[in-house]
């Protein structure tokens, strides 16, 4: 029985190849976008982890030579024997790749590809010809080595890790190391660095800027995109399955009448769908790989530039990613088919087997849809006003989007019926009436378009707002032309001696870690300087905050602290044992995961006399920055400890433009999927359309005109959908910026609107709709009269 029943079921797809294609293509596209985005995220995260795990940069203090020369290995041993727990790092270029040599026995925190804790093969790593660890692409660029090559996707891109001895040999740098990593916990009774050897400086790890944390907001964007694309794809699949099941009602009835048990039939249909899901899922994951592989270089460039996070430009195949892609395909199919199977299971044997026009929502269904839409939108308002927490944020996002999608057909229907009433000529009236009648058949595709467009509006608003805000923030924070870090008091003295005659102003920065309002935070000092008054803007502040601050009568806090500790203006904050000050201003501090507070320099020095300034901002005419740098270098300060502001800014802006490349590519991809949904809906409807259009044609409207009207109809619906998508997208952006960001990262980004951008997006949507409806329209314009005439005759 089973083969016979299966053959009967499959015959439907053989006869309706377009439907099968829609189903498979929709599912494959949904999976592709989802898994493509996931792949990019996974790749980036793996790269951060690799970088953090192998290089320890930003994680540990480092010791280097002030003159930038390599450190003698003897100095390393001298430091160890004096009680400094440092670990040597040899670094150099080999065939253009970065070769890093570590000592696994002394490396802090389990750095490197082999660690004692994990029990890897230390022997092979440290003795004999040794081992080199890198990604396959890195080895390809490196060429053959005497040391065994171990392909390791976890190593940062373009980097080769090996034992320190092997690295020295490969680089021809025996007896030299580039830098020393300083373990966080040092033994008691340690002598100071200059008692042991000359010329070494300690660089403090850049605290508080955990790369993974910072880049999370970027990945959140990508994930939102992936999710919405997937939702769009599932709308397509839902449509295709719904239609197929509707059309197969009579087949199902006949087979049941012939004695095939209903449960068995449903089981076989599930099997059928599972098969499709697996096929489409495989295609989708492969496509996703292509998407990810082509986008990754831009994503990598963005992340590298924005956050200094090194991400490989090439993609690793990760099994987990394949599995999740397949799971999402099967899950999506189940989601899309659930309702259809449920209806089928409850269908009485003798129900009317006549296929009804699919998805023609009757009054009752419409009522429920309207109810659900209103309920969800209401819920999103309630969540927006009353709820807090990141889960509530995402709940708000979901209810807003689904509610709006459900409401879309009702909104469009209302608009069209008003237009119908306002229309003059008979053809115009027919056009509006007919368009409204097409709505149920097109509504899934239009919902998909709505989601795609609003996602685009939302995400591009978020990214652009982020750019504007971040640039403004850089202007505020990087108000000095040059930043200098000093290692100790002697170096500070040297710096001041050189810089003071040349600079317009020197802004020392002192800080101490201190829990504020029971949250981890840093307390900073600020000198009473015009620079701050000129550049800083506050989210909220008392009047003349800098004057109050200068009198030592208040404290400035960052937004993270303000939100997390719920500290309003005037709230009392303990800045030292027994010293409390009122909050007099709140400033934006984007990209910093922890709290921050600022008091005036005099007060800071009184409260924390032991803290010496080691960071300085130098106000100096931009054209003199270079000469100051040179002078400082000659005085013995390490060039690596000076950062000039213009460089950072130019770099940041260039990087944002890369971000836009990625965003635009994803925009176009999601719109393409929505366009595909429209195309498939129109093609599916085409057969049903002939009897509706034949009378009009018979009454004297040419086929060409009819085709033209079809085109206009699709574009009109796209424009109307775009009109709904714009406010929805702005709402989405608001949720992302003001709710999700606050919950996830502790800062709220001001929202800016970009009308030109939205207009461009609207044009994209119009083009997508135009392309999608062109083929059905041309087909209609070329329908042979005999085909139309068949509608009227008995032979049909």
């Amino acid at each position: 029985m089973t083969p016979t029943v299966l053959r009967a079921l499959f015959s439907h797809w053989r006869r309706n190849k377009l439907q099968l294609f829609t189903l498979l293509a929709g599912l494959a596209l949904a999976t592709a976008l989802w898994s493509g985005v996931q792949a990019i995220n996974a790749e980036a995260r793996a790269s951060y982890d690799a970088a953090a795990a192998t290089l320890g940069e930003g994680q540990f203090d480092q010791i280097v030579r002030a003159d930038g020369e390599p450190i003698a290995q003897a100095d390393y041993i001298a430091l160890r024997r004096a009680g400094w727990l440092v670990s040597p790092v040899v670094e150099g270029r080999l065939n253009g790749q970065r070769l890093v040599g570590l000592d696994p026995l002394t490396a802090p925190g389990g750095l490197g590809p082999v660690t004692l804790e994990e029990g890897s093969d230390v022997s092979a790593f440290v003795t004999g010809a040794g081992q080199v660890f890198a990604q396959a692409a890195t080895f390809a660029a490196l060429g053959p080595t005497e040391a065994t090559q171990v392909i390791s996707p976890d190593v940062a891109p373009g980097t080769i890790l090996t034992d320190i001895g092997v690295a020295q040999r490969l680089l021809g740098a025996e007896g030299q190391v580039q830098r020393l990593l300083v373990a966080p916990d040092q033994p008691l009774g340690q002598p100071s660095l200059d008692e042991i050897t000359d010329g070494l400086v300690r660089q403090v790890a850049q605290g508080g800027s955990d790369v993974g944390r910072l880049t999370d907001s970027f990945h959140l964007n990508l994930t939102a995109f992936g999710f919405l694309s997937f939702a769009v794809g599932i709308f397509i699949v839902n449509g295709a399955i719904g239609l197929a099941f509707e059309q197969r009602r009579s087949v199902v009835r006949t087979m049941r009448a012939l004695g095939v048990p209903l449960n068995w039939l449903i089981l076989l249909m599930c099997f059928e769908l599972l098969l499709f899901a697996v096929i489409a899922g495989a295609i989708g994951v492969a496509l996703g790989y292509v998407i990810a592989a082509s986008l990754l270089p831009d994503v990598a460039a963005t992340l590298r530039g924005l956050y200094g996070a090194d991400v490989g430009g090439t993609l690793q195949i990760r099994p987990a990613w394949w599995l999740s892609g397949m799971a999402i395909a099967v899950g999506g199919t189940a989601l899309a088919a659930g309702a259809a199977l449920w209806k089928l299971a409850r269908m009485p044997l003798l129900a009317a087997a006549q296929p009804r026009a699919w998805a023609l929502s009757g009054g009752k269904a419409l009522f429920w849809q309207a109810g659900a839409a209103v309920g969800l939108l209401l819920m999103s308002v309630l969540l927006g006003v009353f709820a807090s927490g990141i889960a509530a944020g995402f709940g708000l996002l979901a209810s807003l989007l689904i509610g709006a999608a459900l409401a879309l057909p009702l909104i469009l229907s209302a608009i069209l019926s008003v237009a119908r009433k306002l229309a003059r000529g008979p053809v115009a009236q027919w056009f509006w009436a007919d368009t409204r009648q097409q709505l149920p058949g097109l509504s899934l595709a239009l919902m998909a378009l709505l989601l795609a467009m609003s996602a685009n509006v939302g995400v591009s608003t978020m990214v652009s707002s982020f750019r504007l805000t971040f640039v403004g923030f850089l202007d505020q924070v990087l108000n000095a032309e040059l930043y200098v870090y000093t290692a100790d008091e002697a170096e500070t003295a040297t710096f001041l001696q050189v810089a003071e005659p040349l600079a317009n102003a020197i802004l020392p920065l002192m800080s101490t870690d201190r829990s504020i309002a029971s949250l981890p935070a840093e307390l900073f000092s600020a000198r009473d300087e015009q620079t701050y008054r000129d550049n800083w803007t506050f989210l909220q502040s008392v009047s003349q905050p800098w004057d109050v601050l200068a009198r030592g009568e208040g404290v400035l806090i960052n937004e993270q602290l303000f939100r997390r500790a719920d500290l309003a203006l005037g709230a009392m904050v303990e800045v030292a044992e027994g010293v409390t000050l009122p909050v007099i201003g709140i400033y934006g501090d984007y990209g910093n995961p922890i709290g921050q507070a600022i008091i005036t320099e005099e007060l800071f020095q009184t409260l924390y006399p032991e803290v010496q300034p080691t960071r300085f901002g130098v106000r100096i005419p931009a054209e003199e920055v270079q000469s100051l740098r040179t002078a400082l270098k000659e005085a013995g300060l390490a060039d690596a400890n000076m950062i000039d502001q213009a460089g950072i800014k130019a770099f940041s802006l260039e990087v944002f433009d890369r971000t836009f490349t990625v965003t635009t590519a994803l925009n176009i991809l999601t719109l393409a999927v929505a366009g595909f949904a429209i195309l498939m809906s129109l093609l599916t409807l085409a057969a049903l359309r002939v009897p509706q259009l034949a009378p009009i044609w018979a009454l004297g409207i040419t086929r060409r005109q009819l085709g033209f009207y079809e085109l206009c109809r699709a574009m009109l619906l796209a424009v109307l959908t775009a009109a709904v998508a714009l406010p929805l997208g702005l709402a989405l952006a608001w949720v992302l910026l003001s709710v999700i960001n606050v919950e996830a990262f502790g800062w709220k980004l001001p929202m800016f609107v970009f009308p030109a951008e939205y207009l461009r997006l609207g044009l994209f949507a119009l083009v997508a709709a135009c392309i999608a409806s062109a083929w059905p329209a041309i087909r209609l314009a070329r329908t042979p009269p005999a085909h139309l005439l068949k509608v009227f005759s008995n032979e049909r």
Partner: protein
Amino acid sequence: MNVKLAAAGFVLWSTSAWAQGFAGLGQTSEGFSDPTPGYSFVFPDDHAAHPEYRIEWWYLTANLADEHGTPYGLQWTLFRSALAPRATDGWDSPQIWMAHAAVTTPDGHYVTERFARDGVGQAGVTATPFEAWIDEWHLRGSSFDTMEMRAGGPEFSFDMSLVASGPLVFHGDEGFSVKSGEGQASYYYSQPFFDISGTLETPEGRIAVTGNAWLDREWSSAPLSENQTGWDWFSLSFEDGTKLMGFQVREGADAGYTYASWIEPDGALTPYANGAFRAEPLRTSDVGGRDVPTEWRVVLTEQGIDVTVTALNNDAWMDVSVPYWEGPVRVSGSHDGVGYLEMTGYE
């Protein structure tokens, strides 16, 4: 005998050995030398490293007291573990060094650990003058009888002077010490007669202390048989000046193989073969979620020994890469005294 600690260094040798834990000590030892009976020790050379053997240690424990009589304990240990039976200059020397140091007070136990590569000067042992070092830690002196010792970590440090008041003693058959019924063995001698004085620095403060120290020297290539899972090692100093070193190597839940050395105040040593020495747990304590025996009954009938051995501080857990229990003990019963207890295979 402290074999177990060498396990830590030893298991660096391979992943599979790591997975086996202490059982890894039962591995075969191709290319390495094996101890044989009848060896003639040559000093001071034999105080230095023997790279042709897989594992080796310089293992010092001390029972101390301050001016009020408050008891303390300390441990200074340097392990050598060979990946191959040779030593060369440079990073590719296949010898790896590991060190543990600890201070135990009645209320605290402070532990730290170091690792080092051979061949670059970060760690090593030389015979003349004697110096065993890793980083800033050292145990050194113009002779083996008068030494300075230092070690420390982020929480504690100690600086000590050692003077020997007796001769070296050689365990087993003139220093050939058998560890199992299947013949696994090591070279094993001790200096149990050190007078020690110096300063401990702990979070509880700086404390001047004096007492007795016991230094073990042992090297081997495969000291345990495959089915031996852990051991309990006792070094006890009685008030009458006699000393007892005894251990049992457990096989699963069974007592397994035992050995004891009875040491007279003049250094005369009587070895006792398997079965003479007995140790039974009397009480176990919950040490960080593990059940560890912290009170024992120790019996050596031939010398009239039937004592209760009690940990000074139950929490003397060595939370290092291969964890174990090691701490000072009090002895009461047929004889009174102090000592050190080491237990492995309870993690």
